[in-house]
């Protein structure tokens, strides 16, 4: 299962600290006015208990932030968020195929099939990494989508 961790620190970081503070994270966000640093990283960790164990180990691997804490530049971590990628995506405006699969209750392979339908929404963003869709468009599609159980019936002319 794909999990996402976020750790929060507080402190007055300068530009020269940012590089060090972000070490080990996939995305670091520093809000200067609040003095809040959020470090995020995805981890594959099986079920919840395994994710908890990984989460406990993760701050140790953030060597840059740990050094800044030791140096008195940062305090914390004072917040730890552990969530699955599906839980994390609930408030998002843009969804990838994994999140769409979760919302529609289908596999990602089925999402790729659905993308071929003329009534499937147009992607909001398309990059080499994949397509992203607006959550509102997917919700509207999900409401109007008639899910017939089993394989689609053959037409008379196909028989």
């Amino acid at each position, binding site marked *: 299962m794909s999990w996402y961790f976020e750790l929060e620190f507080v402190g007055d970081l300068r530009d020269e600290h*940012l*590089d060090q*503070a*972000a*070490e080990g*994270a*996939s*995305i*670091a*966000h*520093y*809000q*200067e*006015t609040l003095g809040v640093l959020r470090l995020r990283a995805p981890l594959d960790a099986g079920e919840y208990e395994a994710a908890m164990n990984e989460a406990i180990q993760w701050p140790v691997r953030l060597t840059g932030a740990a050094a800044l804490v030791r140096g008195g530049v940062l305090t914390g971590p004072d917040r730890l968020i552990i969530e699955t990628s599906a839980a994390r995506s609930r408030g*998002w*405006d*843009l969804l*990838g195929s994994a999140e769409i699969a979760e919302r529609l209750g289908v596999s990602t392979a089925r999402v790729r099939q659905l993308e071929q339908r003329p009534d499937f929404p147009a992607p*909001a*963003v*398309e*990059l*080499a*990494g*994949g397509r*992203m869709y607006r959550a509102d468009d997917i919700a509207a599609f999900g409401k109007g989508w008639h899910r017939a159980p089993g394989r689609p019936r053959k037409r008379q002319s196909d028989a």
Partner: protein
Amino acid sequence: MEIGEAMQLIAEEAERQGFLVRQTRSSMWHFRKGGDNWLVAPKDAGDVLEVLRVLISAGLDWSFKD
């Protein structure tokens, strides 16, 4: 398109739209807008999409892209 090329494209567009963008000594991308700073080090395509998602949430307009 490789990860580096995709990030270059995103960085150029973000800069055009008023973000300050630089690469740090450790080759992370640093995007700044107002008091918000994002440092990212995408390793795969999923990470690139995540960066784009974050920047769109921060006001980057990517809607004109096909």
